[in-house]
């Protein structure tokens, strides 16, 4: 009896996509980030080598493992000081609901960490509730306000993000509410597109002058971050360092987004693991490793991913998607509402619809009520704290009294690709492959 054979090339999902395109004449736009199966080297391809005979591990509690993190020591008068090396990345009020933005601010503050504004400017409640607030300057310049800039603890000049490097932002009409429209100076209900490029500089040579402008506007006090979607990471990191960045943020392929064409999320950018390795090499090759801090982002799920990224050279990690999941994104509640938008718990990437069942990526006041701010803040704080504990546990097991002392040599590669990409020996061989 012959069985039905499903094509590996024209798989059911591909058939549906082609037929959807044939019907609508449009490409697919959605949220969330890379959904396809990751068959490339990821943090999962690395394992830590804790102390046994050759080194001594630390006990918990009394044998402290410091997590204090300082960013922006290169040029800024006032570097930022965080209690932990995990921070909340920029996500716009617009993509996110007001309650979500406030919950993130409070949760990060309670954990001794920082929050970041996003593609839409600063909310008063963000500044009021954040312990440390980073102000993003993006190509759209929505909500750009020099006074807000001067209220921030750091400025992040964003060239692009990992989910969709080389392109602009997108906020579909159902999320361009009255409030959002006013903040962004847009007509209500438009499908807002952001430009791919900054309006007043094109290229790293002009960016040098832009960085100086931002320093002049903030009296040379606060750190200037430059954020890059991971693409030609090695070249871009060198250029950002030459342009005078205090801190460089590299956001890998697996980073999230509220809405963007699906093809960008799946087929552009360099994966986060490879990105952190290239970024560190770039800084080493120009003699600035340690002088310029590196923040890594892009699909960081837990303290393990963060610890591995830090061992590979990151000074800190941004989380985005993980922090929203802490706020109940994809939680099995309000399940009818997931189904109503064509999703299900654990399989929802429908941020772009504006009908988030748990009130995170929506501008609908009724839906937003489902995200209770204090509860949300506590959940975010808990996640940040647990991630920090996970990093500390791994660091102590590796004999470190400071999480920033983690090194590539604390790990081994489980696969050939990871060995080649990270320059770390492959388990069982004591050899680094591919170099």
């Amino acid at each position, binding site marked *: 009896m012959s069985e039905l054979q499903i094509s590996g090339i024209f798989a059911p999902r591909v058939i549906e996509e082609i037929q959807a395109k044939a019907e609508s004449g449009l490409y697919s736009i959605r949220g969330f980030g890379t959904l396809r199966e990751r068959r490339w080297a990821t943090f999962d391809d690395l394992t830590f080598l804790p102390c046994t005979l050759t080194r001594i591990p630390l006990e918990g509690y009394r044998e402290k493992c410091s997590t204090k993190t300082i960013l922006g020591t290169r040029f800024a008068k006032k570097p930022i000081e965080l209690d932990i090396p995990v921070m909340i990345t920029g996500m716009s009020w617009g993509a996110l609901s007001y309650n979500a933005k406030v919950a993130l601010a409070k949760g990060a503050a309670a954990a001794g960490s920082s929050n970041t504004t996003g593609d839409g400017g600063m909310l008063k409640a963000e500044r009021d509730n954040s312990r440390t607030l980073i102000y993003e300057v993006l190509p759209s310049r929505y909500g750009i306000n020099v006074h807000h800039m001067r209220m921030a603890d750091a400025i992040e000049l964003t060239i692009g993000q990992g989910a969709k490097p080389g392109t602009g932002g997108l906020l579909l009409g159902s999320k361009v509410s009255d409030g959002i429209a006013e903040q962004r100076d847009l007509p209500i209900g438009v499908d807002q597109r952001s430009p791919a490029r900054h309006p*007043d500089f094109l290229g790293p040579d002009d960016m040098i002058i832009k960085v*100086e402008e931002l320093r002049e506007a903030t009296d040379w006090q606060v750190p200037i971050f430059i954020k890059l979607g991971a693409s030609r990471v090695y070249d871009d990191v060198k250029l950002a360092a030459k342009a005078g960045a205090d801190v460089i943020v590299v956001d890998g392929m697996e980073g999230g987004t509220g809405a963007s064409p699906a093809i960008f999320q799946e087929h552009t950018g360099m994966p986060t693991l490879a990105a952190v390795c290239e970024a560190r090499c770039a800084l080493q090759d120009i003699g600035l490793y340690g002088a310029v801090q590196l923040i890594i982002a892009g699909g960081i799920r837990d303290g393990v991913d963060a610890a591995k990224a830090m061992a590979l050279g990151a000074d800190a990690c941004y989380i985005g998607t993980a922090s929203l999941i802490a706020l109940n994104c994809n939680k099995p509640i309000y399940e009818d509402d997931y189904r109503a938008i064509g999703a299900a718990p654990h399989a929802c990437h429908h941020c772009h619809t504006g009908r988030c069942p748990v009130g995170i990526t929506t501008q609908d006041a009724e839906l937003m009520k489902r995200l209770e701010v204090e509860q949300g803040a506590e959940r975010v704080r808990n996640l940040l704290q647990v991630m920090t504990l996970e990093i500390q546990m791994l660091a102590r097991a590796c004999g470190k009294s400071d999480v920033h002392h983690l090194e590539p040599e604390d790990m081994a590669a489980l696969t050939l690709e990871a060995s080649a990409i990270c320059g770390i020996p492959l388990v069982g061989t004591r050899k680094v492959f591919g170099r």
Partner: protein
Amino acid sequence: MAEIDAAGQTTREINRAIRQFIAESCKEITVRNPGARHNLAVAILNDAHIRVAGSAGYYCGGLIDGASIEIEGSAGWGVAESMLTGTVRVHGNAGSGAAAAIRAGTVVIHGDAAARLGVSMKGGLVIVAGNCGYMAGFMAQKGTLIVCGDAGEAFADSMYATVCYVGGRIANLGTDAVIAPMDPGEAEELEKTLSAHLPAALRSAKPAANDFKKVIAGRKLWNFDKREWRIWQEAL
């Protein structure tokens, strides 16, 4: 009235001197020998009046709120960028991205503007007495953009609600830009605006208000679900 001699000084030193004068309640400041330095008079957050007696480089008057800047020579890229409100006047020519992302306020250029005049502007008034270059008004959101001379290619591409007027030739219109008739009284308003902001000699050398063309968004890019493939092929 205070004077700063910029010769031999860094931008940082010059801006510091400007702020010092303002702190001492001197709000009329002239910067001599600016040499087209970058970032002059950035983030001046009060109603000081700063005269740049020569050319400025990039971002002159960028991020200001309330100040009035007068550049007697030319300006580089991004003059008045992200201004919250205030006035920036350039007697010479302006580089690309003039009035980029301004929220309100007025930018007046007596000479020509280069590419991307008023890009992403979010309000305010931009007037160019001369010509403008490629893609003026790109993704402009609100406010008014007036070019008395000729406009370059892709004029008013992908705009939201900004209203544009052009006195001379338009090389070609950008995606979703359409020429619309003026409303009754609109030409008179335009004349008032031009006369209020341009020196008489400069105003009289340009076309009559009635002869300006009004350009606005056709709104075909405002919502993504429209099946206007050819428009989107150009726009995306």
